[in-house]
């Protein structure tokens, strides 16, 4: 048995619109996204990253901190993390972060990870379903000056400050060994994320950021005042801390839109030119005629 150690594990997660279930009413006429009708979900592979961190903690000891950068509503994924076993969560939010591309995002995340202090392993999902870029993990690793292990599928072993990880590649797999600290990006096939625990759901039901105190008060009028609620939450460690740009050691011109080298030049609404298509009836006769035509035109041999 490895001796229990206090490994510092950090998980970076994102709340995303559920683009896997985009319906046509999610699109506005001008071609922009009506985010309001899309449910916001925990980015799927970030759940795999959280699961890998929690399993790491159970196996080798440690503490799991979950960070997310996003609007105040993103506190939802932090509560979801607490329900699954995270020890500590932080919301990183500021108007100044808005419009960030992957370079500015990774700069902000790097600064937040550094603010936490020493760490051993950073876990990210391989990619977020709203952009599929898979860039934030490697870029955060580069900015932290640590090695990255992308496409991590399982942690095989940890000993003597070195981790052995199996990676899932396009066409096969690779086993690598790396010293800590390092950053892992985790793929969907890595594990089956645990569901929220019923007990923790009750325990963290009231966990909230200051932005949410008003909503909590409306739901639980017995607290009467914000101060009373705050005192109650503070006593039970249920306050979700919020860091803004001012809390991080950052240069402002590297944040958000300003710090993003990529710019959107234009957005085109896709107008499909309908092809002249032949309607084929879904009957034996229709299909036979189609096959004959394809044979005549040498499309099928």
């Amino acid at each position: 048995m490895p001796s229990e150690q206090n490994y510092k594990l950090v998980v970076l997660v994102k709340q995303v619109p559920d683009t896997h279930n985009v319906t046509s009413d999610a699109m506005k006429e001008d071609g922009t996204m009506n985010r309001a009708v899309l449910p916001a979900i925990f980015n799927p592979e970030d759940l795999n990253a959280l699961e890998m961190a929690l399993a790491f903690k159970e196996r080798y000891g440690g503490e799991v901190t979950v960070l997310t950068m996003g609007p105040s509503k993103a506190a939802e994924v932090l509560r979801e993390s607490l329900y699954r076993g995270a020890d500590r969560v932080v919301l990183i939010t500021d108007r100044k972060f808005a419009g960030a591309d992957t370079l500015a995002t990774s700069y902000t995340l790097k600064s937040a990870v550094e603010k936490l202090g020493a760490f051993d392993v950073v876990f990210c999902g391989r990619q977020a379903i709203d952009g599929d870029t898979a860039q934030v993990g490697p870029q955060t690793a580069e900015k932290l000056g640590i090695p990255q292990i992308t496409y991590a599928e399982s942690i095989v072993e940890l000993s003597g400050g070195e981790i052995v990880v199996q990676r899932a590649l396009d066409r096969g797999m690779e086993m690598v060994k790396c010293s800590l600290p390092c950053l892992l990006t985790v793929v969907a096939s890595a594990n089956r994320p645990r569901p929220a625990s019923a007990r923790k759901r009750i325990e963290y039901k009231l966990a909230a950021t200051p932005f949410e105190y008003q909503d909590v008060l409306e739901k639980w009028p017995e607290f009467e005042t914000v101060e009373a609620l705050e005192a109650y939450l503070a006593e039970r460690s249920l306050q979700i801390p919020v860091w803004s740009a001012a809390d991080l050691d950052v240069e402002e011109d590297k944040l958000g839109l300003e710090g993003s080298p990529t710019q959107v030049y234009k957005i085109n609404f896709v107008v499909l030119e309908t092809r002249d298509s032949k309607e084929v009836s879904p009957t034996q006769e229709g299909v036979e005629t189609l096959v004959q035509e394809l044979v005549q035109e040498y499309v099928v041999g």
Partner: protein
Amino acid sequence: MTDTKNIWVFIEQDEGQIADVSLELLAKAQELAGSLGGEVCALLCGHDVDELAQTAISHGAGRVLLIDHPELALYRSLPYARAVTDLVRDRRPYICLFGATSVGRDLAPRVASAARVGLTADCTDLQIGDYNSKKDKQLYKDLLYQIRPAFGGNIIATIVNPRTRPQMATVREGVMRLQPPDDTREGVIERIEPVIEDQDLVLQVLSRQVRQSTVHLKDSPIVVAGGAGASCKEDFELIRELAHVLGGEVGASRAAVDAGFISPEHQVGQTGITVRPRLYIAAGISGAIQHRAGMDQSNKIIAINTDPNAPIFQVAHYKIVGDLAEVIPLLISALREKAK
């Protein structure tokens, strides 16, 4: 910033074999260089890979930057990122392109971060054009338009990096067309000595198992693709059977891959493979833009869908409104009948 408008293509190689996507990018780079007037450079990293330099030249590189080092024999993020970043910083090419493979998607972001430049993933088209920035009140000439579907679909975004160099992008296999090699082409081979530090060697590869891909989607003249409309594995078997009868390959939408009907190597689209077969059959696929991006150049398209308004019908040459579980068996027997 220099005025030369050179285009670099990262040449991905594994055990002496260049990835197709790198050669496809060389062809595209040549086309882009035509309107820019710069040189196409192949960035070839590895150990004992001299022979590959000529392949890169035959496929369009005017210059090969050959970075040879024993520590580069197998791909690893840190030594590769070090070697590529140093050279990129030193020479500041105008454009730098990578295949969106598990290597390219590991390396390109690390290099972009270190060089502090923008990077666009999974482009479905690249063009050269001007950009009038409202933000800087400045006209930028001859930028790289990095074109990709964005945010859930129905939108095509053109992304630019007006101020940082190089302008970096990744592109999936099959998006750009491979051109036949021309062995009479000549080019310069320039050897570069990389400086690799101890701290770049903290990761060791213990073992590797790489399969030769048995999926030949890109080259197959006939592709039969299934989507979420195949509601179970048995339905998906019908797709396979039809592909078999036609002597074609099996393709899939991402929804079908996500559902576990088939492995990701079969995914067609922006984040899968782009195909241009003689015949593409899409069964139970709605036709999201990310899927269409990978198949709408096919010669003949047959779509089978229960929903008469499915967007896939708009790119189809033959439209069959019906249940794939009924239509495909009819197709299979009609084809078998014909073969008799």
